[in-house]
């Protein structure tokens, strides 16, 4: 059984062109789904596959789709390609190497949910990738995979690429919608959830690039095959993006449940010469930090939750013993303080306050009570904010401060 699913043909020259993609069996899934399957059958298959969201929250995609209520309003699909979580760089690989795989996922998802317009919200910095996506979209229109009456199934779909303007918060699904509507990217109050009240107040499905890219494979190979690729409750593979002090940083598509130790030492080639492992951030910067003795953990949603961390975007940041944990904390707090949208009180002021304390410590002006202050303030942010950014900031700050308290205190 072949190991890789999403990245299988990544080595192939010009895979991003539709002819090359089709030679590898591309758009067969679209033909199958639109001509031989009903939307209900597709939904059933995706639900059975236990495909959990690859953006970070891990919400089952099929369940999300089934929340779309039966109304007369138009429905929309938004593909979250904002990829703003620090350490994360998997979606850019998918979109630049194999944009048609994503488009196939978009077509099948839209057909399943009854959507005729889909948007790819891509981070502004990915300009070249956005152009490549647009190229792929126009090829798909030419070949009749987009537009009116796709593969003569009677189904119509238009796809648009929308570039963001550089805010982390726009990766949060409701802020993404606001931004797409041309407004300031502030998260919305939930409920209502986007599935019922989303883009322009219409039912909207929002999925991550990697999530959607799995759809054609589930359609072609079936839910059972997909589950075997990963875990029963967590189907498929995962693209781990490894960065930091390893010999071979990069993306590694591996089955869910692969151990963190194997990813770092087997797949990414182990630590760089002369470096010793100190800590790992396992799922993008928001994920609580793991110490060197915690890396035996299996990399899947549930195992990481059990270890009080999270799989998040599966971006693994490897930290070595020469890196000061105060520097790590400084980077983390600066980032969230800078990226807080400013809408709700605890996130707006809490993150800035913590960042000011950490900066002061780094300037050698730390006070004895600072560590407790950081913990108290982060706890007051956690769980009390309008959107998940507050938690995304508080979790790493709390875990870093608790697990490396002694080292931080040595700076006071």
């Amino acid at each position, binding site marked *: 059984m072949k190991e890789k699913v999403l990245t299988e043909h990544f080595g192939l020259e010009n895979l991003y062109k539709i002819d090359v993609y089709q030679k590898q069996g591309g758009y067969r899934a679209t033909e199958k789904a639109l001509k031989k399957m009903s939307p209900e059958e597709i939904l059933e298959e995706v639900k059975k596959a236990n495909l959990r969201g690859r953006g970070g929250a891990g919400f089952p995609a099929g369940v999300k789709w089934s929340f779309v209520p039966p109304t007369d309003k138009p429905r929309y699909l938004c593909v979250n390609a904002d990829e703003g979580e620090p350490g994360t760089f998997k979606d850019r690989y998918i979109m630049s190497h194999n944009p048609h795989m994503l488009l196939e996922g978009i077509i099948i998802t839209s057909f399943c949910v009854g959507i005729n317009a889909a948007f790819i919200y891509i981070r502004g910095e990915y300009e070249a990738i956005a152009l490549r996506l647009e190229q792929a979209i126009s090829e798909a229109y030419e070949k009749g995979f987009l537009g009116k009456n796709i593969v003569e199934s009677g189904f119509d779909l238009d796809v648009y690429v929308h570039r963001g303007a550089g805010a982390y918060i726009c990766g949060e699904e409701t802020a993404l919608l606001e931004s797409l509507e041309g407004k300031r990217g502030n998260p919305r*109050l939930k409920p209502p959830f986007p599935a019922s009240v989303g883009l322009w107040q219409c039912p909207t499905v929002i999925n991550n690039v990697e999530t959607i890219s799995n759809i054609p494979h589930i359609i072609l190979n079936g839910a059972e095959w997909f589950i075997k690729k990963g875990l029963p409750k967590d189907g498929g593979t995962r693209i781990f993006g490894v960065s930091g002090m390893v010999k071979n940083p990069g993306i590694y598509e591996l089955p869910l449940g692969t151990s963190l130790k194997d990813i770092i030492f087997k797949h990414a080639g182990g630590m760089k010469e002369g470096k010793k492992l100190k800590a790992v951030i396992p799922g993008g910067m928001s994920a609580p930090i793991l110490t060197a003795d915690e890396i035996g953990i299996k990399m899947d949603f549930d195992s990481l939750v059990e270890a009080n961390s999270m799989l998040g975007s599966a971006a693994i940041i490897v930290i070595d013993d020469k890196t000061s944990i105060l520097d790590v904390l400084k980077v983390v707090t600066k980032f969230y303080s800078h*990226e*807080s949208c400013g809408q709700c009180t605890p996130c707006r002021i*809490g993150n800035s*306050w913590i960042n000011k*304390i950490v900066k002061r410590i780094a300037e050698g002006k730390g006070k004895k009570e600072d560590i407790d202050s950081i913990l108290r303030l982060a706890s007051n942010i956690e769980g009390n904010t309008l959107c998940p950014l507050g938690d995304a900031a508080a979790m790493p700050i709390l875990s870093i401060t608790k697990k490396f308290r002694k080292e931080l205190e040595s700076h006071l």
Partner: protein
Amino acid sequence: MIKIFIDKDPVEVEEGTTVLKAAERAGIHIPHLCYHPAFPPEGSCRMCLVEIEGFPKLELACSTVVKKDMKISTKSERVVEARKAVLEFLLAEHPLDCPICDKAGDCKLQDYYDEYGLFESQFKEVKEKREKKLKIGKTLILDQERCILCTRCVRFLREVTETQELGVFHRGVHSSVNIYDGATVVNNYAGNLAEICPVGAITDEDFRFKTRSWFLEKRESICPLCSRGCNILIEYHPGFARFEVPKKVYRIKARENPEVNGFWICDRGRYGYSYLEEGRADQIILNKIDGENVLTWENISEYLGEKIKRLYSAKKATGIALILHTWLSNEELFLVHKIFKEDLKVEKIFFADPPQIEADGYLLTSDPSPNIRGALEIGFDIKTVDLDALADGTDFLLAFGPFLSGLFSLGDLKEALDKIKGKVLFSYYSNELNSLFDIVIPVALIAEKAGSLTNVDGIVQSFQPALEPPGESLPEWKVLADLGKKLGIDSKFFEKFTSPDAILGEMGKKITFFQEKE
């Protein structure tokens, strides 16, 4: 209705309502800053977090819809701690310049700190520097440092006026409210911004630094400056017993009435309050009296009664003319109608109201008088004064209101009025118009008397005196009831009218429109 539990007490609440509204109904105030009943919940200040059984996190009271048997704690330790935390965050970046803040004493941040805060500041860092005195409107000053980013102002301009002059700029702790490219807030409702700002971020130059809010008494009244009849609060300094501080009106605020003005008033009504105090007439003026010397209203009413009675007995009631206006209350217009139209059969009845204005499409109507609809319902035909018709064959003129001078030049008025032998004016103000009349009797404004008005939509609204009438001023309903008695045509009818309420009661019996409106 469904049953929920707030702080263990069972409460019957409407289905579909929110936790915050349900609690408010039950007499429990859940602190909030960004929530305003005029707008959908915003959920950004995080002050209203409460604990709900079965929910792992604290939930927003402003947006969470009640469910059957929901158990809500508004005072649990967790809730109080969260409130404290939000206050601590807000105050960390707040300038705490309360002594020089106009909003002091009238500030939700102060109130909540007093109730839930009272901690020692742990903030050892440098506060963000922002603009302290941005002119964002004709009289509006924005202090970005005091702003807590509740965005009530931004939402007001987006959802109520739809003019969108304010926005939130920048991100995170640098977020601040501002105008776009120097274009200030220009609309007829701008003054509401200072009122809905829960802190001292937006203040009003019309009020700024003139007095302290805690000296002011809030008195309920109705705005008479157009036919909408917006409900208002007149904020009044009652003076001090031991210091020389004058009694004075300092500002007008909106008073909630969902049927009439919602939560808002227009700037014309808000800033146009000088009519309450400036140039008021406060004593009876006798310019020319034929015969005896009259000094008090008692004497004058005798004199007027006799005068009118004589004309009536001599079948000369046709020589009586009347000028009315629609700042008069329903009760006053009803008495005028009874005395002069029904009993005396006077035909020359004119109206002198302020000239029409431009309506703004929202609250402000084109009628700058509050009771045109009332006059119509009572049975008046609203004819504007025609000076020739007025003077022709008229022996005696009773004129109400100061508005003649806004319609005609003093010269034209003098020419016409010179032809009339006897002339009496009931006016709010002391001005040149008064010199054209034999007797001028000062009268009370709507804010100074009781009565009712019928607004443009036919809503009858009662009001009570908010301010004292100046000097010898009298309410016209009293003047007219006295006159009715003195005339002696139907004296009994007028005897029972010891209050406007009694008059409105009588109106309900006589005019279908006013049935059950008292």
